[in-house]
């Protein structure tokens, strides 16, 4: 029997505000444990929260970036549960009136586009971090407690691990463009839970779902989805029912383990937080936030296409914000988008596959590309210089000089070499004159060889044609 997999994701993303969501403490990853804490985020008796307006603005930015409607009235609620990382024993979150609703993310999988609908994006505070001290004890770092977090909840529109990864990559990239988060999974600023069920192919009846937690990388998400869909199908084929439960993914073992079943599921006793006022956001304020929204990948791609780049190339450039930022910066120094795009796609991006940091700054790359653009060096020589720049960090001009790669553009010198080739290879000349036009390629090659690659190949070819047709 064939099965359909139905996946919904809950993605948590920490916002990069200067201060925490409900107090003035610094929001800074990696600081000394419990150094960014105060009575408010530590839940001391009598302390009260005050909402960080920037966090609301950032969450709205996320909503706008993912085509959501922004609610004009939004309410914060308390989600009550006991856990040592939760200093007040409730998390300030949103349930009934979230900030953003009904968005979508467009993903590309194997050349086809698909819309993944978003149910909501709401704003909440993060919990602290439990650290097992290795001596059997557990300690808490409350620096993260109270950091603003958005939770992005999809509809069950995702059908495979590939789609889930495409969704997460698009999501991550788009958020990176908005600048509201670092979106680093390794630092926990991006986290993801997977809700998954399977059903007979084509059936309208959804199967029982499980929720999987502790997915710390895209790779883990991918593996976990494939594991879980296989497990559920096997259970069904063996005649068992799927139990609604929360699972914990163990990436080292490559399997999921039950954390708690539905019967033990918590009753969070949500209710509106009486310490916080409802937030009213006017359409004018939403419009103002929209105007502050940086250019997003789709718009940027359209802009690049308008520069004359192919759809495919433009798509490659906007896939990561670092690359498009780099591309944009190089373009401030040189006005040949196609040349720059080709070079970045073929050279820089190739290098970045093995090497995480870009070794050549934008200005330096622009200098190299200007030399090519003005025909001062050939593009072949350009690639050679690029390699040396990556290795040594030296400037383009310096390396061109040092390697003696300056292109030969002097007409008299080129003509001299052209005539030399014509007299040295009469057979090729005869072939050309008999209509075998490709013979010119051999002659160009001979001139280039003779000039040690420095002659301007366009000029060589042009002059050869002129002479042969005399």
């Amino acid at each position, binding site marked *: 029997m064939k099965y359909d997999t139905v996946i919904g994701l809950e993605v948590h993303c920490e916002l990069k505000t200067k201060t925490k969501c409900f107090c003035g403490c610094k929001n800074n990853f990696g600081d000394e444990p419990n150094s960014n804490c105060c009575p408010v985020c530590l839940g001391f008796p009598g302390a009260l929260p005050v909402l960080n307006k920037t966090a609301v603005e950032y969450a709205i930015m996320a909503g706008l970036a993912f085509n959501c409607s922004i609610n004009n009235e939004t309410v914060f609620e308390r989600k*009550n549960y006991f856990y040592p990382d939760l*200093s007040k024993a409730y998390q300030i979150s949103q349930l009934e009136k979230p900030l953003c609703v009904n968005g979508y993310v467009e993903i590309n999988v194997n050349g086809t586009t698909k819309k993944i609908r978003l149910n909501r994006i709401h704003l909440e505070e993060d919990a602290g971090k439990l650290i097992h001290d290795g001596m059997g004890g557990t300690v808490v770092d409350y620096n993260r407690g109270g950091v603003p977090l958005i939770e992005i909840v999809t509809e069950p529109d995702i059908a495979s691990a590939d789609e889930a990864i495409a969704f997460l990559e698009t999501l991550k990239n788009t958020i990176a463009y908005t600048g509201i988060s670092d979106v680093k999974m390794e630092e926990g600023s991006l986290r993801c839970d997977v809700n998954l069920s399977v059903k007979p192919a084509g059936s309208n009846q959804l199967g029982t779902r499980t929720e999987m937690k502790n997915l710390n990388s895209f790779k883990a998400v991918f593996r976990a989805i494939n594991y879980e869909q296989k497990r559920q199908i096997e259970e069904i084929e063996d005649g068992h029912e799927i139990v609604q439960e929360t699972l914990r993914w163990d990436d080292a073992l490559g399997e999921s383990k039950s954390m708690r079943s539905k019967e033990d599921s918590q009753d969070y006793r949500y209710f509106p937080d009486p310490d916080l006022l409802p937030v009213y956001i006017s359409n004018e304020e939403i419009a103002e936030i929209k105007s502050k929204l940086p250019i997003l990948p789709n718009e940027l791609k359209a802009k690049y296409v308008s520069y004359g780049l192919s759809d495919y190339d433009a798509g490659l450039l906007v896939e990561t914000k670092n690359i498009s930022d780099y591309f944009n910066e190089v373009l401030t120094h040189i006005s040949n988008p196609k040349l720059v795009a080709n070079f970045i796609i073929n050279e820089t991006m190739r290098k970045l596959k093995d090497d995480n940091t870009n070794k050549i700054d934008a200005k330096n790359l622009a200098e190299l590309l200007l030399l090519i653009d003005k025909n001062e060096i050939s593009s072949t020589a350009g690639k050679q210089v690029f390699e040396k720049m990556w290795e040594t960090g030296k400037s383009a001009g310096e390396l061109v000089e040092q390697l003696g790669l300056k292109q030969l553009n002097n007409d008299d010198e080129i003509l001299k070499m052209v005539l030399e080739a014509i007299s040295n290879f009469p057979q090729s000349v005869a072939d050309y004159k008999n209509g075998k036009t490709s013979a010119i390629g051999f002659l160009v090659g001979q001139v280039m060889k003779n000039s040690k690659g420095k002659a301007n190949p366009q000029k060589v070819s042009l002059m050869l044609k002129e002479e042969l047709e005399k």
Partner: protein
Amino acid sequence: MDYTKLSILEVSKLLHDGSVTSEELTKQVLNNIKQKQNLHALTSVCEEYALKKAREVDALFKKGEKLPLLAGVPITIKDNINIKGLKTTCSSKFLENFVAPYSATIVEKLEQNYAVIVGKNNLDEFAMGSSTENSAFFTTPNPYNLEYVSGGSSGGSACAVAANLGFAGVGTDTGGSVRQPACLCGVVGLKPTYGLVSRYGIVAFASSLDQAGPLTKTVKDSAIMLNALTGYDEKEETSVKREKEDYLTSFSGSVKGIKIGLIKEIGSDGMDVEVKEKLESVIEFYKNQGAEFVELSVPFVNNALACYYILSSAEAASNLARFDGVKYGVSVFDAKNINDLYLKNRSNGFGKEVKRRIMLGNYVLSSGYYDAYYKKAKKVQKKLVEQFNKVFESCDVILTPTSPTPAFKIGEKANNPLSMYLSDVYTVPVNIAELPAISVPCGFNKMGLPIGFQLIGKKFSEKTLFNVADVYDSKNGEAK
């Protein structure tokens, strides 16, 4: 001479003209506290802190600096209000040794007014109760008869003011916790409009209802205290941003033309005969002073108590969840796991009434019951607010008794929470509707126990309340 029996207004004159120093005054108050330890009005006395502040104020007086009316005046505050470096116990075993790491905004305001805080008042544990019998430490008896209660939850504050253990007290009022003990101890108690006085640094019971307010010997002293306590606080979202008023300008000395409402739904059911008689004499007094009386209908007023126990318990259950012993407060060392730690700490740390409210609160919030209880109570609250707004279109203030009975005997209601809850039946609607109200003493019953009446105003009408209350308080002084 014993200055401690004077009002703030009277003693402030003496401090300002140099007839008495704050240090001397503070020592007299500290001496009273020592003499009357059997009143158990205080959970802790901060003698050194108080004397240091008193001497600082005296130095300023000597330099001839112009100081506020409260400068150098010894007062007490309820032990659920944080003073940095001192214990905030909330009269709970859980916080028995908890030292506050920061001061409440109102403490900062009192310090800016150079008031001298001499100690912290006993209360029902976490302000839950009407008699201080729920204090984990001791019960504060009524200063007029030690076999009777002082009321609650701010019973320690009311008793302290009545017994001259400070010129004023600051209490908190979630359902009547300032007004009811003020009434039972024969002092003035004010519950300001919700949002007028900052809640920051006051240990929360029910955040949407809690409001701190002064307990004083006179209405004018209440105005002096409120002047010090109010002001927008950016540390609290529910703090109201409005221009600061000078409540000492409230007093015209007349109630001519003032319309006083009587709520017809507040019948004499459960009302003590002597309380009823006193109320009638208060009505008579105001009529003679030229006030008009109108009978009004607030149909939902009798639903307020049920509404209150749902909303306040729900918020309390959540507010008190943070007391888990992980970060501060009592904690055991033999817990088997994290759940065991929570269970032991909270079982050991909380008293019976607090546990009852936590269970009640969690019940009304749990899935399947939320709509029937919490949501419905919110709807009732909305209705009650509308009904009060409506009646204030045809009156300036509403008159009710503060408490249906004078002080009851210690132990009398301790095992009957419902009858205990009923002692707040007239005060609770005020909190539910976020209104201001003041309790004013109006004599004694045959047993010699104080009786009081309550005036309720529309939002932010504290000035009107003060004026109407003061006309009775100053002209009818001999009745006290």
